C-alpha cells in the first residue's frame, strides 16, 4: 500500500474529532469575532456593522480595566500560593505513613465540590454577622470586633485568593504526587550514599525532576485563574465597587445584563488573546527550564 494511503487512514479517524472541535470551538470563536464588529444586543438579529468601535470602548471601560488588574492579581497570586502549598503537601503525602490514603483523600476533598458551592460555604464563615464563624472566633478568643473580610477592598481581594488556594491546593498536590512517584528511588539511594541530606535531596533531585509537573500545574493554574468566575462572584459579587470584578464577570455583565453583546464579544476576543499570549510565554519558558534541568 502506498505510504500516503496508509497515513490517510489515521487522518480519517481524526475527522469526527475535527468536526466537533470546529463546531463547538472554532465556529463560536469566529462567530464571537463577527459579533464583536457589530452592535448586536443579544436579542434583535437586525444588527449593524460598527467596525472596531467595540474594541475602542474596551479600554475606556472602568469595569474592564479594574477587571483586568484584579484578574491578573488573582491568577498570579493564586498560582504562586497554590504551588507553594501543593509541592510541600505532595512531599508529605508521598511519605509512607499509616494514614496516608486518608490524608490524601482529605486534602483532595475541596477539589470535588464546585467553586460556587465552596464560596457560598466560605461566605457563611466570613460573614460579618452573628453567624459568621471567623468573626465569632475573633470576638470570643481575642475580643476583636467584626472584620470586613468581604467588604474592605484589600481584604476582599485577599480572601478570594486564599479561598481559591484552599480549594485548589489538594488537586495540584495530587498532580505533583503522581510525578513524584515516577522519580526513580535509585537517585535518592545514590545521593544518600554520597552523603546528601533530606533537604539536599529535595533541592537537587526532587525539585528539578518535578519540572514537567510544574509546567503543567502552573499552566492549568494560570489559565484557570485568568478564566475565574465562580469564587469571587459567589463571595463578593465583584464588590465592593469594581474591586473584585473578574474579566469574565465583566463580559457577562456587559453581554447579558446590559444587552451589549457586541461589546462583550469584543471583550472576550481580547481576553482570549491575553490568555493565549500569557500561556504561550509561560509554557515556552518553563519547557526551556525543563530542558536545562533534565
Amino acid at each position, binding site marked *: *500500500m502506498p505510504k500516503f494511503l496508509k497515513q490517510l*487512514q489515521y487522518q*480519517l*479517524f481524526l*475527522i*469526527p474529532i475535527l*468536526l466537533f472541535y470546529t463546531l463547538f470551538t472554532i465556529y463560536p470563536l469566529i462567530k464571537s469575532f463577527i459579533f464583536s464588529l457589530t*452592535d448586536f*444586543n*443579544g*436579542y*434583535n*438579529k437586525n444588527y449593524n456593522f460598527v467596525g472596531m468601535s467595540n474594541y475602542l470602548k474596551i479600554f475606556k471601560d472602568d469595569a474592564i480595566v479594574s477587571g483586568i488588574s484584579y484578574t491578573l492579581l488573582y491568577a498570579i497570586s493564586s498560582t504562586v500560593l497554590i504551588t507553594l502549598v501543593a509541592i510541600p503537601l505532595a512531599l508529605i503525602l508521598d511519605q509512607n505513613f499509616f494514614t496516608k490514603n486518608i490524608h490524601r483523600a482529605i486534602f483532595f476533598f475541596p477539589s470535588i465540590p464546585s467553586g460556587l458551592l465552596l464560596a457560598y460555604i466560605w*461566605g457563611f464563615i*466570613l*460573614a*460579618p*454577622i*452573628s*453567624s459568621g464563624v471567623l468573626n465569632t472566633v475573633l470576638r470570643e478568643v481575642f475580643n476583636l470586633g*467584626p*472584620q*470586613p*473580610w*468581604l*467588604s*474592605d*477592598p484589600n481584604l*476582599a481581594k485577599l480572601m478570594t485568593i486564599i479561598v481559591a488556594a484552599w480549594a485548589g491546593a489538594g488537586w495540584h498536590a495530587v498532580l505533583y504526587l503522581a510525578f513524584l512517584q515516577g522519580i526513580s528511588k535509585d537517585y535518592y539511594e545514590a545521593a544518600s550514599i554520597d552523603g546528601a541530606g533530606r533537604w539536599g535531596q529535595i533541592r537537587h533531585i526532587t525539585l528539578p525532576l518535578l519540572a514537567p509537573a510544574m509546567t503543567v500545574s502552573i499552566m492549568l493554574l494560570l489559565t484557570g485563574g485568568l478564566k475565574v468566575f465562580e469564587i469571587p462572584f459567589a463571595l*463578593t*459579587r465583584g*464588590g*465592593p*465597587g*469594581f474591586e473584585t470584578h473578574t474579566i469574565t464577570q465583566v463580559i457577562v*455583565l456587559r453581554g*447579558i*445584563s*446590559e*444587552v*451589549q453583546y457586541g*461589546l462583550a464579544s469584543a471583550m472576550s476576543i481580547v481576553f482570549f488573546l491575553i490568555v493565549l499570549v500569557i500561556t504561550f510565554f509561560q509554557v515556552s519558558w518553563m519547557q526551556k527550564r525543563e530542558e536545562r534541568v533534565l
Partner: protein
Amino acid sequence: MKKSYGIVLAVILCLSVMLTACGGNNGNATNAGNTNTSGDVGGSGNSGKKVKLSILSWNNEKEMAPLLEGFQAKYPNISFDFQHAPPVKDYISKLQTMLLSHSATDIFIIAAENRNEIIDGGYAIDLTNEPFMDVMLEGNKPMLSKNGKTYAFTQTGWVGGLWYNKDLFAKAGITTFPETWDEFIAACLTLKEAGIIPYYDNVGDVTMIHDGLFANTTLAKDADIDAKIFEGKATFEQSWTETFKLWKSGLVDNKILTADMIGLTADQIVNEFAVGNVAMITGGPWNINTFKEANPDLKYEMAPIPGPNPGGNYYAGAPGVGLAINSKTKYKEEALTFLSYLASPEGLKKFEEGSGAFITAKGYESTVSPEIEKAYKEGLLQGKFYLPMVSWPRHQEALRNQFMISSQDLIVGKGTPEGIAQALDKKLAEMDNK
C-alpha cells in the same frame, strides 16, 4: 486492510447521517415555528386534542402547582412542560439563550429588565385586545407595553418597605415608628445606643431606602421626572443628588450603614431579622414565610420609608412580572386559554394560594397578612410606591449595576453623592450611544 477502509467509511457515513438528521430536525422546527407564526394554530383549548404547553417561570414548581393543577382539571387535554429559573439575572439569561436558539417555551415571563428587548425582537404576541386583559389594572400595563400595545398579562403587584421588630423598638424605648427622615435617623441612633443593631441593608442591590427617599423628595413634586431624565430634559445629577446626600449624611456618616454590610447576602439579612438580631431591614411580602418559619413569636410590621417631607412617605413596589406568549408558539390558542384561566377568579385564587403574591386584578380582593396590611392598603392600592427599574424606560440593568457599584464605592469612602448621580448620567449617555 480493505476491511479497515470499510469501517472508516462506515463511521464517516454514520456521522454524516447523524449530522444531517440534526440539521433536518432544526429545519423542521423552524418551519413549524414559521407556519404557526402565520396563525396556523394547533387547536383550541377545548378541542380535546392532546397538547403539551411549555412554560418558563420564575415562580417555582411548588408556587405554580395549584394554578397548573386547577387548569388541567378543567382542560385535561392540555399538559405542561414546566421549567423554572430563579429571578432576575438567571431567568433573563436563560430566556435569552432559549429565544436565540429557537427553543423558547410557549409561555414565558416579561420583566421590566427585558421588556424592551423582547418586544423589539418580536418575540411576544400582542395581547392588547384579548378579552382577559380587561381584568389587568391600567396602572400595571405601561411596564409591559410599548407604543400603546401590551405584550404580557400580569395579575400581581408588590409592595415593600421597612420591616421593624416591635420588641426591639420597645426595648429601646421607641413607641411609634418614625414619620420623617430625621426621626428615622434619631431612632436608629437610639437603637444603637441601646446595644441593638438598628438596620441591615442589602447593599448588593439598589436599596429600597433610595426608592422611598427619591419618591418623597423628588417624585412627589414631579411625577414625570423619570420621563424627563430619559428625554434629556433633566439629569440624574439634578434629580437624584439630594437623595444621595440624605442617604449618606443620615446612614453612612452616622455609621448606621457600614461597609461590612456589602458582604451580607439577602438571605443572611432576612435570617438576622427573623431571629431578632437586627431592628430593621427592607423587604417585601416574600419574606413573611421565612419569618414565620424561623421565629413564629416575632412581632413585626411593615412601615413606609420615611422621607424629609412629612406625610409624603412612599413604599417600594411595582407591578408584577407578566406572562407573555411566544410569537413562534405552535399552541397559540391553548396558551391564550391558559392566560384566560389565570385571569379568571378561580385562576387568580389558585395563583394566590400557591405564590402568596398580592393579586391586583380588577374585581379581586387579595387576602393579606396583617403585618403587611397597611403597606398593601396605603401603599399598593393608593399607588404610593416607586421602583426606578420599572419607571426607567430603557437600560434598566446597566443603570442598576452602575447605581449599586457607585453606592458601594460611597460606603467604603470612595466618591461623593454628586459622583453617584453623575455616574448615572454618564452611563445613560454611554448606553444611548452604544
